[in-house]
């Protein structure tokens, strides 16, 4: 089989067309996939890929041939029916979306299996695995002539599908957007959200079946979900999301083919299947998005949190030193005491203290740490914020004076001079807080 072709070096006639077919399929699917992901129907591609079997078998039983056109029609019809039945059972039977999809596609698949086993009585070479599933590696060998060019049939089919999908998404962008996010609003503003839903379903079925037939099923199932999911982690807006998902889809098509040729070679094997490597590369892109997307990425979130915790710890250290200084030397401001009082780990406290020392806010005096004048100024502002908040919570918000400390402790880190100014005004510029402690002047004047 051509699946095991040795592609020793890049050749535009072969690899060029394979990658072109891959890109077209990936982009066509991910364009629609954005809306599937937003409508929580990500599993539809997978469902359709299994459910088309009875359509293929019926077309085969009716025409008694393996001609492409009737099989295509049969598969599309059953694909659309899958979407319709799932929606109908979900709505009428009040079944969960996933469950209704599961019921429909497994039943259809089983039906198809029985039909095909029956049909195989007539045709020995028909088996459930290879009725309509094309292989992307075969793309360059099935050419049709368009004008004076010879173009692979798969590229032509997928090109047409991609153009239709692009036109649909561009022309109906506003409608798709509203009906995806707020179906009731879309119906209220004069176009039927159900019409958009079913148009989308029909296009999804057509795209899926066209892709099964030309490049196999795993590619389209992956591209419906993975690039849009990655794109959604990068942006909050729909238009950039659609654009980004197409970009990711194209990237995984190119990368997938390169990986399929090269990666097995590192272990002494020949190339593996291109379509599945495209899915794997898309998965890699999704992993990168999950980890490193600027706002949604796990790593970014983690470091932002650490940074915030670090800043708060630094605030706490100087505020604590300030309070000890205020009370007189009841506590020695050494590392052990700070660590015990702040319930902090030695590493984070050490890093924080080092940073404060570098910034010139604290200095070492014998075995204790003391605030520099600069440190006194920052700490006084913090303590001032804390005590003004306490005053405000008691006098203005009606809190009991024994329940205000925790709130003030939280607010003090996010209070800037202008907010302190306002707090000072609305609490009538107090000089002591509800606990009787003095409220320092702005900037640390005693």
């Amino acid at each position: 089989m051509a699946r095991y072709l040795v592609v020793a070096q890049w050749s535009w006639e072969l690899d060029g067309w394979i990658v072109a077919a891959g890109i077209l399929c990936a982009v066509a699917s991910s364009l629609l996939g954005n809306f599937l992901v937003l409508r929580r129907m990500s599993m539809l591609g997978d469902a359709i890929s299994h459910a088309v079997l009875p359509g293929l078998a019926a077309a085969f039983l009716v025409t008694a041939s393996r001609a492409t056109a009737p099989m295509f029609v049969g598969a599309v019809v059953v694909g659309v029916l899958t979407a319709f039945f799932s929606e109908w059972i979900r709505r009428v039977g009040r079944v969960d979306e996933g469950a209704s999809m599961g019921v429909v596609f497994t039943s259809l698949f089983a039906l198809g299996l029985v039909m095909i086993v029956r049909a195989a009585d007539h045709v020995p070479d028909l088996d459930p695995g290879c009725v309509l599933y094309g292989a992307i590696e075969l793309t360059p060998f099935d050419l049709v002539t368009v004008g004076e060019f010879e173009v692979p049939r798969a590229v032509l089919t997928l090109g047409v599908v991609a153009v239709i999908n692009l036109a649909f998404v561009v022309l109906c962008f506003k409608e798709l957007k509203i009906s995806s996010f707020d179906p009731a609003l879309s119906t209220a503003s004069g176009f039927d959200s159900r019409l958009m839903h079913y148009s989308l379903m029909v296009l999804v079925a057509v795209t899926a079946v066209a892709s099964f037939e030309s490049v196999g099923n795993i590619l389209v199932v992956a591209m419906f979900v993975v690039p849009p999911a990655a794109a959604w982690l990068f942006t909050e807006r729909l238009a950039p999301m659609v654009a980004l998902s197409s970009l990711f889809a194209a990237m995984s098509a190119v990368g997938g083919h390169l990986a399929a040729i090269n990666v097995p070679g590192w272990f002494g094997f020949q190339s593996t299947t291109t379509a599945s490597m495209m899915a794997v590369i898309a998965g890699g892109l999704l992993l990168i998005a999950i980890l490193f997307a600027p706002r949604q990425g796990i790593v970014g979130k983690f470091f932002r949190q650490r940074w915030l915790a670090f800043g708060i710890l630094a605030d706490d250290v100087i505020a604590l030193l300030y309070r000890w200084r205020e009370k007189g030397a009841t506590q020695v401001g050494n590392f052990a005491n700070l660590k015990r009082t702040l319930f902090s780990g030695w590493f984070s406290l050490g890093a924080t203290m080092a940073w404060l020392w570098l910034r010139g806010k604290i200095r070492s005096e014998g075995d204790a740490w003391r605030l520099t004048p600069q440190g006194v100024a920052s700490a006084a502002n913090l303590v001032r914020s804390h005590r003004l908040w306490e005053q405000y919570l008691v006098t203005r918000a009606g809190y009991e004076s024994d329940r205000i400390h925790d709130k003030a402790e939280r607010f003090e880190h996010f209070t800037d001079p202008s907010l302190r100014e306002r707090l000072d005004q609305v609490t009538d510029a107090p000089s002591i807080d509800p606990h009787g402690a003095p409220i320092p002047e702005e900037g640390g004047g005693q």
Partner: protein
Amino acid sequence: MEKWFRPIVRLALPVAVAMAVCGSMSHDATAAAIGRVESGAPVVADSTSRGFDWEKWLRVLLLRDYNTRVVIAGATLLGGAAGIVGSFTLLRKRALMGDALSHATLPGIAIAFIVANALGHARSLPVLLIGATLSGLLGVAAILLIRNLTRLKEDTALGAVLSVFFGAGLALMGVVQQMKGGHAAGLESFIYGKTASMGISDAVLIASAGFACILVCVLMYREFKLLCFDTEFAGSEGYPVWILDLLLMGLVVTVCMVGLQAVGLILVIALLVIPAAAARFWTENLRAMIVISALLGGASGATGAAASALFARLPSGAVIVLACAACFVISLFFGTSRGLVARWWRARRLNRSVAEQHLLRAMYEILETRLGWPALADQDNAEELAETVSVAALRDKRSWSATALKREIRRAERAGWIRETGDHVQFLQRGLEESASLTRLHRLWELYLITHADVAPAHVDREADAIEHLLAPEVVSELEALLERQFPQFPASPHALAGSTAARTDFRGVES
């Protein structure tokens, strides 16, 4: 009798019907496809011909063959176990988890094959199963992580993990097939399943795994119930939600693993989803749902295995799923709790009683406008009221069509509320009493809305109209207790009645 036992009894008949339909369906399909039956009529032939073979049927159905016994027992147990586990995953809204998971096993199978090959044991089943399980669990962990740590939703996580893992598996398979002895024939049975070739060891494996699943579900019933219905509450009660989730998914993995051999990678999903979804139509009670789901799964497994034994070229996995599907369709329509027919019937009954109550109250209000309040309320004891109401006046009272009104009048006459004479209608004793109490209820609610909910008198009519049919007797007695000190036993309408010109505003009790 236990509360949950009743739906099961109710279920027994439809299930029997389902199985009969299934059996006849697969028989018909076979017959039609093979072309052995030219006319549609069933052909009963002697046992030597290729027609209906009584001997064979009896042999299979009475479980005379050792092999048949093993296969049917295995399929039934698998169906039952999947039905139980599936109930929990369905309620957890993770019905397709089995789908994602079974696809996610492929890379594990491929890697296990490569490893086993390197160690010199090509295609050893335990190694393949361990590989599949590990990779399935990895897939589940990936899904849970994506769901919990990013804003991607459950379905997206499922779809992404499914396709990427399956892609990785296919890519690895591409490599496996280049290896010595790597021709994937043996691996393919993982995808399509071979129930018919199930041996005693497979059946024992399925039986023990199924028993383990059932045991875990029974022991963890309370915890799983909390997990499915109120995760936050379970968390706040101190249950380790994360571990419970993983345990439930572990059960799904177990069912998938043993199911892979029996019915194949794709159809095992059906066993996890369909019986549970079908059982949901019969009951609102979790315990009953689980039992029904297990019964449906087991019955489908038995039907499929038996049909596969009876007909030579019928893939057992597919028939098991089709039996499930038939159960689902029957449940969807005839389920006693959520089935379409039951719901349609309940809605129809409600609509009818609402329409009847509208008619009676409309007649009462017309008469009251004519005779004046409270003159009509005193007439309760009359044998029948001499006053008649014209149909035309009734039509003006509400926005109902002539046909609908005529239908309601006919129905009310049959029920003995009213009598129709020409184009006039007239209360009978019962009807007058009933309509008086309906009208009283309506006004009580109106007065409640005015005095306690501060709704303007002009608006209360429609609000009361919507709620009056649904007021439970306890609510009515509470209303009475609340309002009896302020208002007479039978209050007047607090607003102008439609069709009358005189506005009735003498409900001074409201202000005092």
